[in-house]
């Protein structure tokens, strides 16, 4: 039940109470209960001074953390997770289904996958040779082959994927997670983006807080020497900085005492302390000296292929962030000298290099989380903004395809070895258990213990949700 906002500060106005008391005292008791657990209080007035205070979930959570492996540019599902023998049979012939307009409308013939497929694990889930390492884990995966998007162009599709709506400026799913749950991490914000070099079309808005308070925006860790903006102190020595901060704190505290410990100043003091901890903590976090050679090699930190080495660092850092209690971690792809996964031409070389960069590190991340007992509380999602066409663009590429594509999830609360949904015999359109991006978001929030219909923020005259007015939990893939 959602309670309308009103000026009195209590969840129900007198008039509303009178209107609703027809349904008995139960309503009133419920209002009181909901207010006490902190979830149904006026969301628009959630304590902006302590944004990351851990908050009660609607029901027990399976996932405490999400690692979102964003495959920028859209890998081809029929070349990785959704094998279609029919494509080999019809290879080179005109495509026999009706073709919707595509991004470039440079329609070629049916194009067989250049890769071999094998069945893996006890579940026998097939995967192409592009993801030989990752495929070792399929018994832990729920592979959804019937994903759809509403947009066939990167920017809008990315906004849709990240924020639940295909326009710029709405809160990212990571921001919603931080807003809904707070964070257990004392040294870092709740939503961290590990940038591998490529930023999704649509830019920083994919990681923004939109109309939610700025505290919830994604903090982007770059791959550079200064991973976080402004993290390096301006003072020439640590002593100088400590002197400055000590004085600052003293003066702020006097101000706070004068104002009877006003909440906002107390938060400002706390923020300088957190900022200072981040300054000391981030370099430590990104220094892998304490990781054994075996672990470093498992991820591929020292791989000769640059893309692999970069993504290995991101994956290892993701594990370390999970250990620190960070709520939502998104990884963007490294640049492997093709245009992302966006192979409108030269599919063979482009997909080979892109897969080479991420396959081993992803497999290592799953292995490592599992051996540390963290996979049970971490949800990993591998997904792009859409898929690619089973017919060629030109002769050797594939165009954008929002009508059917594959993603997989693994870890907390996921029923392993599951294939959910299906595309038609060409892999063009989802035909069975068709799922939307809203369904993905509803399921993610569900696994984090949040009812996606209850997590709202008052904006622009109504209670906004990550899933807007949509979203069905995909129960088939839940353990």
């Amino acid at each position, binding site marked *: 039940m959602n309670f309308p906002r009103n000026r009195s500060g209590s969840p129900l106005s007198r008039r509303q109470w009178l209107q609703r008391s027809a349904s008995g005292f139960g309503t009133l008791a419920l209002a009181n209960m909901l207010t006490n657990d902190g979830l149904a209080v006026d969301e628009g007035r959630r304590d902006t001074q302590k944004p990351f205070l851990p908050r009660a979930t609607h029901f027990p959570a399976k996932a405490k953390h999400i690692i979102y492996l964003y495959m920028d540019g859209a890998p081809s599902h029929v070349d990785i997770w959704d094998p279609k023998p029919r494509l080999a049979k019809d290879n080179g012939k005109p495509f026999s289904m009706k073709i919707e307009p595509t991004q470039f409308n440079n329609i070629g013939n049916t194009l067989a996958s250049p890769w071999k497929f094998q069945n893996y694990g006890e579940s026998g889930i097939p995967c192409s040779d592009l993801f030989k390492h990752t495929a070792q884990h399929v018994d832990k995966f729920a592979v959804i082959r019937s994903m759809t998007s509403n947009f066939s162009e990167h920017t809008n599709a990315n906004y849709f994927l990240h924020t639940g709506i295909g326009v*710029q400026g709405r809160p990212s799913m990571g921001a919603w997670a931080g807003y809904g749950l707070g964070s257990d991490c004392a040294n870092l914000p709740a939503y961290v983006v590990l940038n591998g070099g490529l930023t999704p079309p649509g830019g920083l808005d994919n990681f923004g807080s939109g109309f939610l308070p700025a*505290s919830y925006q994604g903090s982007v860790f770059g791959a550079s020497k200064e991973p976080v903006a402004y*993290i390096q102190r301006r003072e*020439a020595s640590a002593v100088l900085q400590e002197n*400055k901060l000590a004085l600052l704190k003293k003066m702020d505290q006097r*101000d706070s005492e004068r104002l009877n410990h006003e909440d906002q100043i107390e938060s400002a003091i706390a923020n*300088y302390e957190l900022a200072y901890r981040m300054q000391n903590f981030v370099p430590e976090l990104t220094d892998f000296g304490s990781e054994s050679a075996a672990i470093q090699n498992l991820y591929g930190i020292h791989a000769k292929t640059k893309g692999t080495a970069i993504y290995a660092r991101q994956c290892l850092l993701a594990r370390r962030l999970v250990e620190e209690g960070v709520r939502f971690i998104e990884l963007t792809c490294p640049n492997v000298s093709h245009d992302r996964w966006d192979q409108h031409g030269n599919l063979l070389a482009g997909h080979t290099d892109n897969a080479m960069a991420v396959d081993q590190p992803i497999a290592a991340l799953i292995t490592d989380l599992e051996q540390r007992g963290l996979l049970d509380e971490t949800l990993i999602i591998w997904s792009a903004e859409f898929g690619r066409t089973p017919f060629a663009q030109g002769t050797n590429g594939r165009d954008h395809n929002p009508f059917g594509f594959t993603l997989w999830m693994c870890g907390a609360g996921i029923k392993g070895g599951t294939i959910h949904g299906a595309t038609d015999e060409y892999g063009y359109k989802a035909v069975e258990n068709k799922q939307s991006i809203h369904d993905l978001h509803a399921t993610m929030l569900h696994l984090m213990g949040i009812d996606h219909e209850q997590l709202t923020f008052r904006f622009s005259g109504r209670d906004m949700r990550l899933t807007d007015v949509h979203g069905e939990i995909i129960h088939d893939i839940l353990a």
Partner: protein
Amino acid sequence: MIVTSATYQQTSIVSAELITRDPRNRLLARQSRIRLEAEAIRDSSIQSAGVLSTKIGGRGVYPPQPAGIYVLTQQKKAWPESQGNDRFRRGMYIFFWRSSPYPLMPTFDAPEASVTCTRRSRSNTPLQALTLANDRSFFEFAQLLAEKILQSDATSDTDRIRLAMQRTLARNPTPFEQTRLQAFVDAQKTWYAKNPQHAKTVAPDFLPANWELSDAAAWTALSRVLLNLDEFITRE
């Protein structure tokens, strides 16, 4: 009308009892403390340093921003860094790329340019603290404020501290503050005297004659403290 009313002109100093009775100040028995908006925080710093450009209108300006901002966008955007007075225009004149706004803006809750904004939220985050502490622009404002202090006709440190407080917080220091700030300045002078190579990068660019670099650097350090105070970025 509103700002001239007695209600608006109340102090924000509040008793513990009043906080308990009316935590959100719905009854308006006091003034609310409000953190300044992103643009105003920057404007206030520039005003304190005495270099605010009051020019009205014209093309957007491009104050310095950290390198690497456009690593995060699909297309690289031009950012021809402004020189001279254009660096000190009001925040509302800063050129706004929707996909990569000037970083101060989103950090301090400036709204998205692509959706309607009925009310700005006011968050309080460690990234704000890092920005105020380490951003190149704010460092530059502190240097300029120090320059202003050194150029003044104040003849003692006591007077200089008073001037610095007046320029930043529009009030005189309490005896406690006076003592602490003086001790801080003295300690900084000593440190920079021992480490002259660092004094050069911290001291204002245009030193009035007869000032030692190390002493000048100490006043930049003091200016930074004052510009980073919660009281400074808050309308009391």
